[in-house]
Structure formats: C-alpha cells, structure tokens
C-alpha cells in the first residue's frame, strides 16, 4: 500500500528534537525527507548517550530520512539549498528566531525560490509576542508555561516533567502543521506554519485553565492528587504503586461496591471523604500486585494502571500490541532498538530507511537531483558539501 505522502519532498534543517522529530513523523508518512546538515553534522550526532559513536537521540529522530552535508552559510551552499527548495514541497526548521533569515534561506527566500512552499517553523515562543526573541530550552519553557509550578507536591520546590515535554509536543504540532500545509497545498500559495514550545506547554495545562481563573487563589501543585476528584493518585500495592483516577459517579459506584463505602457520594463528597476513601483503597490494594489490582479495577470500569518504569513498559506482555521499541540491523551501527512511530496509515509506517550517515546522499541529491554530478569534487574541495 502506498504511504500517504509518497511523491512529496521535504527538507529538514532541524536540530536536536523539535525540528528533526517533526520531520521524522512526516517521513514516516511516506515523504522523501532530506536532512540538510552542516559539514560537521547536526548537533544531536554529537550528544552523549552514544551508540556507534553517534548520539542515540540522532538515531531515534532521524530514521526514514536521507542526509546531505551542505554548508548553507556559504554563498554556493545557500544557492544550492534554494535550488533544493525549488524542487521540494516543504521546509522544516527550528533555529533561533532570525537565524535562517541571516543565512539568506528564511521563509521569504524560500517562497521566492518556490512560491508554493510549505514552511514549518518551531520556536521557543513562536514568531510573535514580547518573548519571541528569547532564547529557550524545553526546561525554560516548562517554567514559563506553568508546567513546573503545577508539578510535584505542594510545598516542594517546582518540578519539571521528566520528558522534554514542550519540545516533544512542539515536534508533534510542527508535524501536524506541515501535514496541514501539504494536504491543502495550492500552486502559487506558500504557507508559513508557526509552532511554539510556549504554546504547547500552556495548552497542555488547558484542563486546569478554568481552575486557574476561578479567583480563589488559582490552583497549585498537588503531587499525584487532583484538586477536584478523589480518589485520584498513586497508591501502594504489594509490588509498587498503582495509579487510580476516579472522575465520574459511575466509576465511583463500582469502586464503592469493592470498598464497602457509600455509592451515593458525589464528586464533592468524595473529595471531602478523600482520606477515608484512600485508607480503604490502600487496604484493598496492599494485598495485590499492581497488575492484579489494575486488572480487577478495570474489570469494573475503574481507570487504574500500575506505574511502570520504561524497562517494564518495554517488556510487559500486556503491552504486546503497543510495543514501543523496534529492532533494526543497521549496516554501520549494527543491531539496535529504536522507538516506533506513533502515526497511523493504511500502509506500513515502519522503518523504510535506516538513519543516514552524514552526507550519505550527497551524490543522489546534489549530484543527481540538482544535476551537479560533475561539480561534486569542486564543491567538496571548496567546503560547500561534506
């Protein structure tokens, strides 16, 4: 089965996470994604946690892509890049605001080269607003979007989400945005799609916006508890914690039967009796393993799950159909595991292309696609390509 984006070409100038991961999702959907790297490689190749001498993050974010090593900061490199833009459908980048323009390959230059270009950009704070020029990493945006203030127990110092939450959500938003552009693309119309870590961090807290605007001192962190629902939290079982989240009367009716508590308690009463409920629940859970307890609760339609670490999540038989890792045999790097794609299509969105070595496709792209086969030695000697 043909993948949806087969026949489309996308240029990936992303670095680290938000840009490259977004481009990977687009590649997973079948587009030919060409990673345009500096001559010493995109920075995640050099990060720690290396496998085969390359940062593991690079492996994860860059399968299903091709690679050219092109110095876009040189005059000839800039010209070659814009020739590539003219032969492509989309560009994805996540450099600091103004960087691409300074190199002469920003949105305006790209749309001059290709009036139908879809240009996806991911920034800390987006393209507008008073913070637009601020330098940002994921942790900074977690602080400034309310995530850290709301995470952790009341009275403890602020706490960040373990994953690079804003970076990763922005990767997904950028991919969604670029898909939007590709799906609706019209000859002669370019599209500028602008995703921001700040937006994604703030929007991720949307369920708590009403409480934050309630005018009674707003809302504060509660650890694993919920400000309005009970029981809601991580409770100890015989072999570790289990997460239980009761948010509806139907769920409570089922749990109340198991615990021998009044089924008539509504949400407000459940919160009022939170300590009593948690005491009864703890007794019930203490005799069971996390999986046993969660399975029994789920049989009664009560949301519950054991709190697993990533080793357990990668191997639990119950998660067989959602196994997160996939193994490949890479001709250079050898046997390794990568994280499966989360997007779905009628065709197979698995690994079609293994993550490229630096400049692996210079000949195919610069030589073949752009027609500079004869010029390749000169371009190499002049430091334009790697």
């Amino acid at each position, binding site marked *: 089965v043909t993948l*949806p984006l087969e026949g489309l070409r996308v240029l990936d100038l992303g670095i680290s996470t938000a840009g490259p991961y977004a481009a990977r999702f687009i590649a997973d959907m079948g587009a030919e994604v060409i990673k345009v790297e500096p001559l010493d490689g995109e920075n995640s190749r050099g990060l720690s946690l290396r496998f085969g001498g390359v940062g593991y993050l690079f492996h994860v974010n860059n399968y299903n892509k091709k690679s050219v090593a092109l110095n876009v900061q040189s005059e000839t490199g800039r010209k070659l890049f814009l020739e590539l833009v003219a032969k492509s459908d989309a560009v994805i980048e996540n450099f600091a605001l103004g960087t691409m323009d300074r190199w002469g390959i920003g949105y305006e230059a790209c749309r001059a080269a290709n009036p139908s270009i879809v240009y996806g950009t991911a920034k800390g704070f987006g393209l507008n607003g008073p913070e637009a020029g601020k330098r940002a990493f994921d942790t900074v945006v977690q602080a400034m979007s309310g995530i850290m203030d709301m995470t952790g127990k009341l009275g403890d110092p602020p706490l960040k989400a373990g994953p690079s939450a804003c970076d990763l959500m922005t990767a997904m938003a950028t991919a969604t945005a670029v898909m939007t552009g590709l799906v609706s693309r019209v000859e002669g119309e370019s599209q500028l799609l602008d995703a921001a870590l700040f937006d994604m961090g703030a929007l991720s807290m949307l369920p708590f916006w*009403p409480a934050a605007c309630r005018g009674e001192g707003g809302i504060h962190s509660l650890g694993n508890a919920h400000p309005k629902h009970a029981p809601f939290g991580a409770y100890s079982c015989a072999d570790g914690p289990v997460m239980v989240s009761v948010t509806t009367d139907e769920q409570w009716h089922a749990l109340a039967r198991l615990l021998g508590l009044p089924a008539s308690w509504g949400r407000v009463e459940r919160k009022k009796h939170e300590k009593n409920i948690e005491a009864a629940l703890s007794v019930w859970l203490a005799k069971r393993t996390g999986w046993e307890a969660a399975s029994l609760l789920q049989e009664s339609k009560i949301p519950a799950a054991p709190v697993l670490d990533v080793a357990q999540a990668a191997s639990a038989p119950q998660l067989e159909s959602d196994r997160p890792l996939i193994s490949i045999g890479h001709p250079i790097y050898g046997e390794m595991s990568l994280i499966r794609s989360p997007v779905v299509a009628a065709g197979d969105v698995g690994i079609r292309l293994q993550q490229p070595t630096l400049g692996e496709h210079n000949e195919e792209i610069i030589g073949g696609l752009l027609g500079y086969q004869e010029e390749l030695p000169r371009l190499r000697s002049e430091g334009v390509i790697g």
Partner: protein
Amino acid sequence: MDDFFADLKAIEICAGYGPAVVAGKVLADLGCRVTKVEPLGGDLLRVDPIDEGSSLSLFTLICGAKDSVFIEIGDRGEIGALERLLADADILVLDASAWQTLSSIIGSAPSIIDRYPSLTICVASYFGISGPLASWQGSEEIVQALSGVMSTTGQPGEPPVRIPGAMLTHGAAMCAVISILGDLVAKRRSGRGAFLDCGALLPAAAFLTAAYPVYLLSGEAPTGIGNRHAMSAPWNTFPCSDGWLVICAGNEPSWRRLCETIDRSDLLTDPRFSTADTRVANVDVLEAEIAMWTNSHTVAQAELLIGGNGTPCGAIVSLHEVIECPQFEARSLIRKSGDQAIAGPFFQRNVQSLPNRHERSLPERAARKTLSRLTDVQNHDAGSLGVHRPSPHGEHA
C-alpha cells in the same frame, strides 16, 4: 486554500476530555466544520460543575468552535439521523467507547466505509480497539503510569510524580490528526477512506526519546532526576531571594556567559568545571557556587541579568500568571467568539499568495465560520436531520 478545510465536514463522538475531543478541536481550528454528537443529557464536560466560579468553561474552551447535535448513538431509533450526518461527512473521529457502541449498531469499519467510501474513520483513544488493554478505561494519568512517562518525573530517590494537564492526551490527538490528514491525501488516490486506530501508548512512548536511550545503553530504567539535565550542567532551578529561577547553561557559550554574568570567571579555570563532563560530575558543588549568587538576587533581577546576557533562563510562573501574560495574549491562546472564550490553535497558519500578499489568522477565520455555521444548523440542518443543537447552556434549541 481556505476552501480546502472549510469544505471538510467532521463528526466527533466522544465523552469528556480525551484524544478524540482534542483532535476534533484541532480540525475545527483548521476551519473544518466539526459537529459534536452528544448524548441527550449533554457531554460530560458540560454537566460536570467543576468549572463553577471560573470565568472559563472547559467545554467551551475545547468545543467552542464546533457545532453540536444531540443524538443517543446507542438508540437504534436515532441512528437514521447519525447515518445522514455520516453520509455527508469526510471524517469521523471518536473514542473507543463510542466506537464500540456505534459499530455494534451500524456495522464494522469496512461495512461503514463501503456505505460511505469518502469517510475517514479515526478512533482516537487511550488504548485503541485491539490488544489486551482495549477494554481498559484510560485517562492522561493512566497512560502516564503505564507508558513509563510518570516514572521519569520526580525528585531523585522519591516516588514517580504525574505531570498535570494533558501532555500525552494532546500528543495522541496530534498523532491522530496527522494520521487523518495523511488519509485525506491517500483517499485522493484510492477513492476510499481508511479506518485508523490511534491509541495513546505509542504517542506516549514518543515522549521518551531521552529515557529509552538511557535504558537501552545501560540496561537500567531511568528515574526522576528533578530539574537537572542528565548530560549538561548547570541546568536546574536555583533559589533566589523571592522564588526560583531555571537556568540552562549546558553548552560552552552559555556557561561562559553565565560565569561572566555572576562575576565568577574563576569557575572557568577550575578543573572541576572545565568541561561538560566534569561539570556534570561535580554538579552539587557547581550548583552551590551558583546558588550563592542567585540567593542574593530576586528572580526578576537574576532573570534580567542572566537572560539579558544570552543564557537561557526563566522564572517559575503560576498558571494564572501564564494566562494573564502578554505572550499568551500575543499568541491568541484564548480567543473570544461572542461571549465565549475558546482555546487558541496548536499552531499559527499564514497563507500567502504571490505576488499579492494576504494574511489571515486562523482564529478569526474559524470564529467567522462558527457564527454562520450556527445559523445554518439552527435554521436548516437541525430540522432536516431531526436532531437538535444545544444552546451554550446545554438546552435544546
């Protein structure tokens, strides 16, 4: 360009806050005509009084740009109305529970697509519709627990902590929308929509791009490391005289600028801090040196000096302060449609034609269309379909 999404019709059937309702919001933000099918009593988000006393309503924030009809999808007598909606739709997005009910009444996915070949069906749910956990009840926290995401959050040596909000739910919703948009392209070739089963566990695993490498390389599952970075230092929250400041000076230029700002160039030549690796190895001592400086400044002073010198840093901001801040407003993260407050789009989209440039922001377009859409539904569609559109308060029109 504008007509592409304006011409698309999506049906959303789901309860409460989950991947399906968020996917419907993303489609509505694009300009699709999204009709939310609710039970006669109204969606869970309408009837739960959790928003009481707030100037914002969660239902309106997430559904304010959608149309709504009341149909009991489990009632065979009302299925005719739903079938008429499906016959006219391009996309059906629903949660697993709604899919179970619907498929038991109107048939399997292939049979539905046989009847409505242009329909893309997407079940956007926490556990999907197949596999051992398909019958499980999901939520943001349940998926955080099961996926390993929760285990990577917390202070060192302390139990896992959930991440408040809807990070994984939004991630799952975006992956569902990517899949839906892909199918819009695919069915131009095939002439037939697909059935897409989009669970949240794989999107959750996609959030573990740093944790899985640690496990795969060491064999040890990583746990929470507070606010530090596993591979860079200094990178943490630092105490100021009136609060906390995040400082991320993980690379060499930022580290040098930070030392310059806090007037500690001696740290640059200290062998304990001379390389990234030694700074990580001696992180406790390093952070204590920096904290001596931050403790003697307010958050605002420290942020101005450190951030002003180009080192990434940021104050810890409460959620209420975030909603009130100028950046939030500039990004239109809440937009007004009449007296309703609707959450802003997940990304901004500007369309430009050459040579004449025209820009229209997505929120304005969506809001304009919503008004005309409401008129349509109340005056025409509702009657012809035999269904009702609730008022913002959940009453029948």
